[in-house]
C-alpha cells in the first residue's frame, strides 16, 4: 500500500477536490468536524488524513460560500457541538462536482489504460 503524502494532499484539497469529500459525507446526515475527520480517515482506510488546521478552514470556506451550514446543537448528555449540513445550493454543487469528477476519472483511466485502479 503506497502511502500518500498527507501534506501534499492538504495542498491538493485546498485546491478544491476535498470539497467533494466533505459535501458527499454531509449529504446523508449532518455531522460535526471531528466526526468528518474520522470518517474520511476511516473510509480511505488511513490513506486520507485531515488535519485540524486544514479541515476547519475548509468547512468555514464552504459555509461562507453558502454550500453548507453549521449550527450549534446540544444533545442530551453531550456538550454543545457544531453540526454541518448541506444546503440546497450545496446539493446542486455536489451533483455538478460528482459529474465532473466521474468524467475526470474516466478520462484518466482511458488515457493511462488502467482498468482496475
Amino acid at each position, binding site marked *: 500500500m503506497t502511502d500518500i503524502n498527507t501534506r501534499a494532499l492538504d495542498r491538493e484539497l485546498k485546491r478544491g477536490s476535498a470539497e467533494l469529500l466533505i459535501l458527499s459525507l454531509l449529504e446523508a446526515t449532518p455531522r460535526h468536524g*471531528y466526526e468528518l475527520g474520522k470518517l474520511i480517515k476511516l473510509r480511505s482506510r488511513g490513506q486520507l488524513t485531515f*488535519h*485540524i*488546521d486544514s479541515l*476547519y*478552514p475548509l468547512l468555514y470556506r464552504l459555509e461562507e460560500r453558502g454550500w453548507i451550514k453549521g449550527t450549534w446543537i446540544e444533545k442530551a448528555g453531550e*456538550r454543545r457541538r*457544531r453540526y454541518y449540513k448541506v444546503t440546497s445550493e450545496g446539493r446542486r454543487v455536489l451533483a455538478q462536482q460528482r459529474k465532473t469528477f466521474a468524467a475526470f476519472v474516466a478520462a484518466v483511466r482511458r488515457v493511462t489504460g488502467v482498468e482496475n485502479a
Partner: protein
Amino acid sequence: MPDPTNSLKWAHEVRTRLSSLRLSATREAEIVQELSQHLDEHYRELIAEGQSPEDAERLTLAEFSEGNLLARYMAPLRQAQTTPPSTPGAPTGHVLTDVWQDVRHAARVLMKQRAFAGTAVMTLALGIGATTAIFSVVYGVLLKPLPFADPDGLVSLKQYAPHGAGANHGAATYLTYRENQTAFEAIGAWDTTDASITGGSNPERVQALLVSSSTLPILGVKPVAGRFFAIEDDSPGAPLRVVLTNGYWQRRFGGRNVVGEPLVIDGRPAEVIGVLPSSFKFLRTSPSILLPLPLDASAPRGISFGFQALARLKSGTTLAFANADVGRMISLLPPQFARLELQPNVRPLADDVIGNIGDTLWILLAAVGVVLLIACGNVANLFLIRAEARQQELAMRAALGASRARLARSLFSESIVLALAGGALGLAFAQAALGLLRWFAPAYLPRLDEIAIDSGVLVFTVSISMLCGAFFGVIALRKFGRPNTAALKEGGRSSGDSPTRHRTRNTLVVGQVALALTLLIVSGLMIRTFIAMRQIDPGFTDPEHVQTFVVAIPANFITDPQRAARTHQSVAERLAQVPGVTSVGLSSSITMDGEDNGNYLMVEEFPEPAGSAMITKLRRFKSFAPGYFATMGNRFVAGRDVTWNEIYEGRMVIVISETLAREYWKEPARAIGKRVRCCNTTMPWREIVGVSGDERDDGLNQPATSMVYFPMLNESYRWRTMAYAVRSNRVGTPGFLGEIQQAVWAVNADLPLANIQTLEEIQASSMGRTSFALVMLAIAAGVALLIGVVGIYGVIAYAAAQRTREIGLRMALGAQVADVRRMFLRQGLSLTITGIVVGIVASFGVTRVMAAMLFGVSPTDPMTYVAVSAVLASVALVATYLPARRAARVDPVIALRAEA
C-alpha cells in the same frame, strides 16, 4: 466531562494561532470552542488507546502543522477580515481612532437611554439656546466692529460738561480743535435734521444727515455713483448739493442715474452729486439724504452746541494722548467757555451707537449664563444618578482590563457628546429666538440687522457646549473615575449611594435654588420698576387715542411768520373737522420725543447774579399753540391756556409747568401774574398766565422736567416746525390717517407729514429699555425656576427610589405614612431653604449692579425678596411633596422583596 485544565490549554493553543486574524470577538470564541472540542476528543481517544497523558498531549498538538497553517488557510476568508472592534477597553493605539471610537460608543450608549439623554439634551438646549441668543445680540451690538474701514481708529469727539452744556460741538469748539489738534488724521462734524423734499408728486419729510466734507472720507466710505462733498460745498453760501443714501435712491428714483439732477430741499434748489453704498449705516441714524454742514470759520465764535464731531486717530496714537490733546485745546477756547468747566471725553465711536444698552445686555447675558449654570447643575445631577446605576458596568470593565484613563475617557466622551447635542439643538432654539426678536424689532435695540448667528457666535456656542460637557464630565469623573470593585459583589447596586455622592447632589440642588432665586429677584425688581413707571402720571391721558405727527413750514417756503402761524391754525381747524376728532393741539415737540431744547429762564422776583446760574439752571423750552394741553389730557393746575389772538398780537404771556412754579413760589397759583424772561436782559418780560401739570419729558423714570411754554412764534423761540396732537376715538382705525393727511393737504398740498406715531407708541418706546429688560429677564427667571424645580423633584424622587427598601422596613416596623412623607418633605425643604438663604445673600450683591435700571424700588426691596422667596418655596414644596407622597405609598411587602 472534559478536563477543564485541558480545555483551557486547547483553547489557548487555538487562540494563539488565531490571534493574527481579524476575527470578530464572537466568531473567534466560536472557532476556539469548536477546535478545542476537536482537540479534546482527539486527546481522550488517545488516552483511551492507552497513551500516556504526555504522549497524548504531544500527539494531539501534532494536529497543528508547522508555520501556523490554520491562520494561513483562514486568512482569505471573509470572517477573518472584520473591521476592528469598537469596544471601549480595546485601544487601537491611534489617538484619533480611539477618540472616534469613544464618541461612537458614547452616542450608542446614549441612544439606548433615550429618556435620560432626551432630558439632558433638552435641558442643556434651553440653557445653551438662551445663552447663544443673548450672546449673538451682545456680539452683534457691542462687540462687532462698526461697518467702516479700520473702525478701531474712529473716535467720537466729546466733552464732559459738568453743568449740562457743552458735551457736543459748536463752531467754537469744532473749529478750534480742527485748527490746533495734533492727535488726529482729520476731524469731521455731523448732525441730523429733518428736511422737506418737495416738487415731486408727494411732498416728503425725511431724515437728513448733515456732514462736513471731511466726515465721509474719515469713515472710509466710497460713493457708488458720483462724488461726495468737497471743501467748497462746506462754505456758507455755496450752492446746495445733496448725496442720496442707497435706500432713498432706490425707493424714489428706482436706482437710475440721478447725478446732476435737481431736487427741492426745504424750498431750496439742490443738485444731486452722489449716491452712498447700500452698506452705509451711520450710528443710530437712518437718513434718506446727506447735506453739507456749513461752517463759517471767520464768523464770531460764541457759546453754542448744536452738532457732533468724530475723528480718526493718527496711527499709533492712543485714546489717552487724544484726550490730553483735547484737554490742551479746551484752554484755547474763547474765555467765556471757562465757566462751563469742560473736560475732554474722546471715546471709541462705537460707544455712540451702543449708548446705555451695554449694561442691560451684559446683565441679560449674565442672567442667561445663570440659567445655563442651573441647567448644567441638573444635567450633572442626572449624570451622577446614572453613573451610580452604572457602577457595576464600570467596575466590570475595569476588571476586564480597561485602564482608569480609558474609563474616564469614555465617561467624559459621553458628557461631551451630550453637551454637543444640546448645543446643536440650542443653536436651533437661538435661531428661532432671534427670528422672534427681529419680528418684534424693539426700537431700543440698535444694530438689529447686524445680529445673527455667524462664525463668532458659533465658536462661542461650541465652546460653552464643550465647557458644559467638561463641567458635568468632571463631576461624574471625580465621583466615579476610580471603579468601585465592591460594586461587583452580589447585589452591589445597593452600595451605590454613599454619603459623599449625596452631598454632591445636594450641593448642586442648593446652588440651583440659589441661582434661580437670584434671577427671580432680579426680574421681580424689574416688574416693580415697570409697575412704578406705569403708575407715574406722564402728563397725558389715554395715549392710545392721541395721534401725533410733525408738519414743517420751512422759512423759505412761507417767509412771513404770521402767515406761517395762520397756516398752522388753518391746519389745526381743518383737522378738528375730521369726523371723530375731539381736539387738536400744537407744540414744538411732543412729550418724550427726545427733543431737548434747554435754556436759561430769568425770574423777575428772584434775580440771580449772571454767570453760574445760566448754566446750572437749564429749563426745557417749548413753543405751543392753543389746545395742546387739552388734547394731551394734561390739566391746568392754575391759570389758563393762551389764545390764537394772543399769538398773532404777540402778547407777552407764557405758561410754565407745576414743578417749575413750585420751585420758586411753592404754590402754583402764586406764580400767576409773575414775570419771567428768556436767556438774557435784552429779552422782554412775559407774564405767567397758566401753570400746567407736569410732563415727564425725559422719560417716565426721570423726574418731571421743568418746562417753559412760549406761545408759538415768539421773539426768543422762532420754531416753525410744529408737532400736532389729535385726539380721537378713531385713532388706529383704517382710513383715519388718510383723512388726517388729506386735511393737512387741503390747506397746503406742499406740507409734508413726518414722525407719524400715536402717543401710546411714544410712551411705549420711552419704556423700551425697561420692557425689553423685563421681558427677557422674566423669561430667563421662568426657565430658571422650571429647571431648578425639576432639579429638586429629581433629587427627592431619586432619594425616595433609592430608599424604597428602608422605607418598607420602617413601615413594617410601625412607621406611619405621615412619618415617611415628613422625612422626605424635611429633606426637600431643608435643601430649598438653604438655597433661598444663599440666594438672598447673593442677590444683595448682584442687584446693586442693576440699580441704574431700577425706578421707584430699592435693589434690596424687602417686599420683592419676601414675595419671590415665598413663590419659590411654595413651588419647591410641591416639587418635594409629589415624590414624598409616592414614597410613603410604598407597600412594605413589595419594598422588602425588591432588591434595593
